[in-house]
């Protein structure tokens, strides 16, 4: 029942906020709902896995992990959003706020849906819920971004549906159901060729939502044009839901003895995504698009770690958390810088550390964190992934990844340094924005969490991670 509440709560809140008349007070629904959701989440995660509606809703270990991450991210973003919307009085938020809440509900549904079809429905729903968020700014550019997001995303999802059908057909038989547990149980009897085709379609489909190259093309546009808070939620939350979907299918493939093939596919996608991200991050002048490509890169790292197996699985799950939190810090501080300079091109943005000290500094450290510098969290997970590659004797993979990471560091760094260092550019003088409590604290908090994960992983969290890793390591 708890899970139902988890899903229903945001919907109710959405309805409530839609009913709200006042533009000023409507956003206040967000933090309330978010905190409530967080509390429920913590309860649900610690509660023994109770399945509802004939096992359609249940929390498997990776699901718990994603749900936790999601809820925390949303809480951070909710508080930020209140502050943010105060700065965007000129735009109506009566679509924005409910859609944010719908996003929360649908993604929560993804994390706890144990049915192949239901999961697809949830993912598709989350896509639709986010489209209006991207269109928040009401500019031609934002329309274009939304259009591309919708079209590419929906096509991808459609392929995922086809893939789900293939998988269903592969497992067709007496009293077969599409519950993951049943699929897992029947895995050995599935027909190989259907399964392979299904996996390809599912990876491409959900990979589109996740933003793996070459299906990543919507990402820079959407992240670039959407408000920073939406970018944070997409990069830190939605992508991970898609990753969760892929992981669940991957587990079934492993059980079916197709692990070899599936892992190969994942590693390939991972490397390709990192490479593509590297290419487009070099000389990137729009810092929000840069963050989008960085997200592509890290999605690549996630599937790469998953594909390498062994300790790589743990690493990739850990990296999911690290990347999510760091992305929030980056996107939100980037949004503040965007406000302060009223531009997201490094041609106008100079000396952010002098203009908005807090956001500028957080952005710089977020850059160090996301590029895998200790003592921040991503270093640990990236180090684990690389050393797993070495341990698995995939020296070329490891070497390639390291090389690409260097290229990415150089590409990203040149942009970031140009933004934060030096004396403030004239563009910075025109605006009146200054870091406030609501726009500052959540950002700092997320970076603090990243730092914490780098130095010490709390024991309960570590147990969650280990549990999830064990859950996924079940090969044939």
């Amino acid at each position, binding site marked *: 029942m708890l899970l139902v509440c988890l899903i229903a709560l945001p919907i109710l809140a959405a309805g409530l906020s839609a009913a709200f008349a006042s533009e000023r007070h409507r956003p206040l629904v967000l933090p309330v709902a978010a905190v409530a959701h967080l509390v429920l989440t913590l309860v649900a995660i610690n509660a023994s896995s109770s399945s509802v509606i004939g096992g359609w809703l249940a929390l498997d270990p990776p699901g718990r992990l994603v749900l936790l991450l999601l809820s925390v991210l949303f809480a951070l973003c909710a508080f930020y959003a209140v502050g943010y919307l105060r700065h965007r009085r000129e735009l109506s938020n009566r679509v924005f706020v409910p859609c944010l809440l719908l996003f929360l509900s649908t993604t929560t549904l993804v994390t706890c849906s144990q049915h192949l079809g239901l999961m697809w429905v949830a993912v598709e729903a989350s896509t639709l819920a986010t489209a209006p968020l991207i269109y928040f700014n009401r500019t031609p550019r934002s329309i274009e971004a939304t259009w591309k997001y919708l*079209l590419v995303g929906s096509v991808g999802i459609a392929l995922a549906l086809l893939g789900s059908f293939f998988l269903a057909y592969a497992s067709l038989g007496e009293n077969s159901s599409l519950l993951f547990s049943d699929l897992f149980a029947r895995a050995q009897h599935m027909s190989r060729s259907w399964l392979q085709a299904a996996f390809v*379609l599912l990876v491409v489909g959900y990979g589109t939502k996740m933003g793996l190259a*070459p299906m990543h093309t919507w990402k820079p546009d959407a992240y670039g044009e959407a408000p920073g808070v939406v970018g944070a939620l997409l990069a830190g939350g939605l992508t991970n839901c898609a990753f969760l979907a892929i992981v669940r299918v991957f587990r079934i493939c492993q059980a079916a003895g197709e692990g070899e093939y599936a892992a190969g596919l994942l590693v390939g996608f991972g490397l390709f995504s990192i490479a593509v991200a590297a290419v487009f991050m070099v000389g990137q002048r729009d810092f929000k698009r840069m963050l989008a490509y960085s997200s592509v890169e890290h999605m690549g790292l996630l599937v790469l770690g998953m594909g390498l197996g062994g300790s790589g699985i743990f690493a990739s799950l*850990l990296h999911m958390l690290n990347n999510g939190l760091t992305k929030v810090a980056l996107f939100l501080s980037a949004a503040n810088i965007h406000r302060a300079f009223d531009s997201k091109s490094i041609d106008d943005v100079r000396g952010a550390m002098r203009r908005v000290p807090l956001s500028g500094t957080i952005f710089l450290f977020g850059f160090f964190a996301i590029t895998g510098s*200790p003592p921040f969290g991503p270093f640990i997970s990236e*180090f684990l992934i690389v050393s797993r590659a070495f341990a698995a004797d995939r020296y070329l993979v490891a070497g390639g990844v*390291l090389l690409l990471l260097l290229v990415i560091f150089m590409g990203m*760094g040149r942009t970031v340094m140009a933004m934060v260092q030096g004396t403030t550019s004239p563009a910075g003088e025109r605006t009146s924005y200054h870091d406030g409590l609501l726009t500052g604290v959540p950002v700092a908090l997320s970076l603090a969490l990243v730092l914490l994960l780098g130095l010490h992983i709390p024991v309960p969290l570590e147990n969650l991670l280990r549990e999830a890793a064990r859950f996924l390591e079940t090969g044939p």
Partner: protein
Amino acid sequence: MIPSSLAIELASALCIAFSGAPGLLRRSGATGQAIATALNGAGSALGLAGLYLLARSGEPETALIGLLPVGRVSFALDALSALFLIPILVISALGSIYGSSYWRQREHPANGRGLRFWWGIMTASMMAVVLADDAVLFLVAWEVMALAAFFLICTEDEQPEVRRASWIYLVATHAGTLCLIAFFSLLGHAQGSFSLWPRLPDEAPSWLPTALFALGITGFGFKAGLIPLHVWLPGAHANAPSHVSALLSGVLLKVGIYGVVRVCGLLAAPPAWWGGVLIGLGVLSGVLGIALAMAQQDVKRLLAYSSIENIGIVVIGVGLASLGRSLGLAELVTLGLGGALFHVLSHSLMKPLLFLSAGSLLHATGTRQISALGGLARTMPKTFALFAVGALAICGLPPLNGFVSELLLFVGLLRAAVLDGASDWAWVALAAPALALIGALAAATFVKVMGIAFSGAARTQAAARAHDPGLGMLAPMFALASGCILIGLVPDIAIALLRGALATWGPRRTAATPSLEALVSLNWISAGGVLLIAGAVLIAAAFRRRLSQHPTVVTWDCGYAAPTPRMQYVDSSFSDTLVGLFHWVVRSRQTPVKLAGPFPVATRFQITVPDAALDHIVLPLLRGADRSLSRLRVLQRGPVQMYLLYVLFAVVALLLVAR
């Protein structure tokens, strides 16, 4: 339970780490500055005391304090780490004292507090690096050190030149770190745990040590500034505040050397060619480094290149020691490593001394251009005297400390020519002439600096008005200078510090490693130094009356009676011949001067010296890569149809593969 001296070291590290923190809290950092200096000094004193305790007991100490998400927070303190701790502690303390008057909070309200904060962090992280006993902890400390150094270098990030230098540094250090990540992953994979500095198991595959060696030398070489990995070094040293340059050159590079030494220690008997390669690299860095230094016109860049040269000398020593280990010749190990470590110590005395005096020169005149100075020997005599000491020391001339280390290395290299065990490797003795060349070039370089920047008449108003800095800046320099002289005259002091480190490093086959004293009679060195000074004093005494009171005239200029300061010889013409000899690597660009007509108009003549590796190899390479990458950007050209096509292609291709 943490053993005593290790605990003290960690305490001092903490004390130093947060020395700058109190200053961050209060807006007016004047008191914060005092606190920072005090804490830093106290921490260093504490640390040195701890080292003394360790020397008393002589037992290496280890302690496991906690756990990281991966790896452990565990430290180990052995003779080698202790040796490298000494310069860290000393230079950090002296530097912060110097900085408290060189970088006054009043004069630098914007960046003073940040500078002191990162100074503390950097010192502590360097201590952590040499103390770390776990790969992950090492990497964490290493990167924190690198980032702290970055923030120190870009203290004045409003200047584009500073931003450029700090950016190049950042990329270089990150490349190094990535190499180290690969290195430690392989190492951990080979031995099954991330505990550090193991002797590799013998059943390790044959390619593994080679790979480790390559990765390690590259990774640590970036930090140490080995040519051609030195690209970041000159710019960073030139553009950082001078006491930061002193810390970088005096200590940070040495941390890189620490890594190199550890890497060579991985195998009980490394392949002989490791030694050969290291000696080759060392000679390369030494000769090219000093050749590039010779060509510089910016005094701090010059000092930076000379640091590259000295790192080269150290690496020659390490290579010799490694050769000795593989051939089982304890003598070479003692002489090579002894020379190397001695040079580490003495260079970490004299190079900071030089940088600090360059700092006070910059402070007094506001320029780093050698050719814009002159006459400072009379306007700021104390600084000049201290600089002269540093210059003599760094040229390896008796009776100062530089000479001792070079002597040890010379003896070691020459021994390689005669020892029976080394008959196949006798040719490494040819590194001795190279070392001699390095020394001579260094002499030429520093004669140039002394002569052009300090001697003669002032070329500019700024130089004429210059004056010695206050005690706050002079005292640390004086301490360093007296250290140089002391170690030069009484080498036994430093040798005593080396003994433990040498003992840990001997080859396994031979039983006892001979002590340095047995191989080179240090007494004669001391005696020689004393006699030299005594002789000079005696002769001076013979003519003291006429030396003290005498008529003065203008400098004889071949009958030209009215010489002006502008007519003096300048640095670029001084070094022209030698730079010409190294034209194949030092390609100095000259702006051509066009003089036309009977009365040509005033014109400018300028010489710029681009870096051999950075400006001729690395940057063009990167630009090329940039261009070719930007060609690929058409893939994201906008039409959504194109994007959908990508998806279709992905599906079809993969489905066909799957079948």
